């Protein structure tokens, strides 16, 4: 019997100076995983939580029972949304670097998650995003100008200057307000779904959480309440391998997939190639049908890679191997869908370049407009009086008095 420390420390495959190493990843062949009927009971389909649903193979062919058979027009829209997300991200990143916005977070590498999932849902479904799901907002048609005004905390900011950049929301778009506190949206989505079920409405809720944030209590509460009340909800863990500097093993990913938590609670769990637009779409549609037909909640783990820094305050060169994304075995979601479309949808490098150029101009024009509503340093500014509104529906006396004091302070300067 050993008499030495047994504290296990989850290994991190590759740190700076080491070669990228993805040998820990359990992959399945494209097309290899069975697709159970949407009415299957969670306990019968445990395998879905351990294998990896993939549709697109290395030759960009769609394979197997999970192929959603989307037509080329729909795939083009998906490609467009993903590309727009990426271009938007790149531009906003530069904008932050130029000091025009205070903070930004890209979803580079994760784009298929939000875009394919959102396209597989209905407009009436309520989404509870995390901060790295800008694709949801783009698919739901939130104008880029609106998103930019949020980033700028300017006079057209939907948050009236109260939130950090990227914490968008849209009541009309059924996109819930993003919280800076990790994980909290997860049980809220379940509650929303419970209410839909109580009211007998046909909408479902979907929510996204990072694999790192799945360690929070909210994750457990969400799974538990979803299981107990069989709420019509889709709970998504975006396993992009990193939580800031911390590898997914620290969130429990070393011992078992995140999808496997589902079956532990009696919830269907599905592990899917998160960079495979077709697979993500198919799995989401399957889960949505389950929710809508009373077959209960689904936990989806989307295996992807956070290709960029965590945020503009972060520098991954400090904690992970250089060039890691180039070695990521599941490729790039945009590139993969593009190649598939080139092969089967009449797409071409040329059309792709043209699309990129169009979207670049759209982003540039939007920025130009957004900036007219004010930037951090220039142009019109939100009225600081707004600081005191919406704490309560009606402003109580003490806040009215503080607003007065604030005005006096400003005048004194």
């Amino acid at each position: 019997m050993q008499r030495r420390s047994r504290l296990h420390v989850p290994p991190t495959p590759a740190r700076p100076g080491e070669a990228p190493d993805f040998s820990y990843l359990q992959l399945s062949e494209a097309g290899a995983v069975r697709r159970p009927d949407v009415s299957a009971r969670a306990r019968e389909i445990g395998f879905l939580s351990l294998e990896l649903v993939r549709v697109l193979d290395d030759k960009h062919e769609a394979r197997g029972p999970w192929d959603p058979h989307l037509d080329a027009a729909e795939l083009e829209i998906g490609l467009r949304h993903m590309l727009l997300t990426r271009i938007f991200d790149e531009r906003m990143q530069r904008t932050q670097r130029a000091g025009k916005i205070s903070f930004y977070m890209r979803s580079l590498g994760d784009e298929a998650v939000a875009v394919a999932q959102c396209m597989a849902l209905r407009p009436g479904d309520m989404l509870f995003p995390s901060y790295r799901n800008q694709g949801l907002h783009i698919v739901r048609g939130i104008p880029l100008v609106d998103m930019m005004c949020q980033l700028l905390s300017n006079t057209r900011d939907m948050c009236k200057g109260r939130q950090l950049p990227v914490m968008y929301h849209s009541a009309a778009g059924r996109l819930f307000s993003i919280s800076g506190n990790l994980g909290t949206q997860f049980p809220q989505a379940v509650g929303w779904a419970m209410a839909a079920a109580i009211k007998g409405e046909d909408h479902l809720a979907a929510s996204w959480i990072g694999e790192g944030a799945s360690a929070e209590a909210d994750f457990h509460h969400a799974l538990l309440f979803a299981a107990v009340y069989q709420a019509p909800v889709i709970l998504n863990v975006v396993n992009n391998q990193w939580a800031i500097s911390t590898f997914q093993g620290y969130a429990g990913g070393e011992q078992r997939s995140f999808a496997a938590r589902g079956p532990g609670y009696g919830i269907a769990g599905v592990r899917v190639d998160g960079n495979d637009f077709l697979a993500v779409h198919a799995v989401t549609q399957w889960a949505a049908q389950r929710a809508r037909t009373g077959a209960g909640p689904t936990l989806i783990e989307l295996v992807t890679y956070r290709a960029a820094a965590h945020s503009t305050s972060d520098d991954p060169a400090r904690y992970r191997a250089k060039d890691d994304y180039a070695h990521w075995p599941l490729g790039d979601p945009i590139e993969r869908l593009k190649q598939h479309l080139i092969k089967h949808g009449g797409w071409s490098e040329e059309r792709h370049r043209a699309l990129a150029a169009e979207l670049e101009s759209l982003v540039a024009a939007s920025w130009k407009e957004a900036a007219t509503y004010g930037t951090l340093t220039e142009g019109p500014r939100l009225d600081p009086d707004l600081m005191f509104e919406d704490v309560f529906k009606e402003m109580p006396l003490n806040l009215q008095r503080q607003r007065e004091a604030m005005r006096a302070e400003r005048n004194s300067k």
Partner: protein
Amino acid sequence: MAQMNMIQALNSAMDVMLGRDPAVVLMGEDIGYFGGVFRVTEGLQRKYGEHRVLDTPIAEGGIVGAAIGMAVNGLRPVAEIQFADYIYPGFDQIASELARLRYRSAGDFFAPVTIRTPCGGGIRGGQTHSQSPEGIFTHVCGIKVVMPSNPFDAKGLLITAIEDDDPVIFFEPKRLYNGPFDGDTNRPAVPWSTHKKGEVPAGHYTVPLGKADIVRAGKDLTIISYGTMVHVAAAAAAAQGIDAEIIDLRSLVPLDADSICSSVKKTGRCVVAHEATRFSGFGAEIVSIIQEECFWDLLAPIQRVAGWDTPYPHAFEWEYFPSQARVAAALKVAMEPA
């Protein structure tokens, strides 16, 4: 008007609201079939069904989180936390989410959740069934905090809370459930039927949040209190023969600072009493407001009466509980000639 104890009054408030508004749902541990460990929700699941009155898992964080989502989807959840001592696992969802949703979304989303929870001591509950954590929530912007001291207010305030579009934490002093308690443990307990606020209309009515109740007008000194201590302080003042103006705050947020200040401006003397521990308790905020607003009117230092700065120990219930003697000592200092 019916005679009701506080349990019945609260039950009636929820019954009225479940009947009037299909959006109202109740949820909590043991509240459904069983009717709650204090029986406050008794009979309501039978009457309104399992989709309106939900038993939940034992997860206060999950309860609040789910309630927020339900509220965002148009319901008006009334969530019971079985004891106020057990509200802490839900603290993040309350402080970071429930309280801030309207603000951070600029009013586009809001969650009209009411959280009911029994608080306070006097029932030999020991350190984990006796706490009064209301002060903590008063420091969290965006959440209303209510504590009634009698059945009439309890029902009217709870209806107002449920109808309010802002979240409300509704503390129920459990020692008052069955009768007014003035801190005198030597006398037999009296039922609410002996008290005029035990008369409660059967139907819908409201008591506004943010409006204190002047329980007794007086000119010697102002006593500011809420919950159980309203009764204890009143009895102590009466025993000392002091003509005290007694203010029952009823709602801590929003606070009726004007009623407080106009009374203290009149009397020049003040005692603030609550059951919660003293240090950084809500009494400190009241003292500070008075000190700021009524400084020139004060004839003696405002006195605080509170629980000691320790947990609430099982063996020393009555040494811990802010007794009439503790109030009397404070009254004495507050009444010292200027």
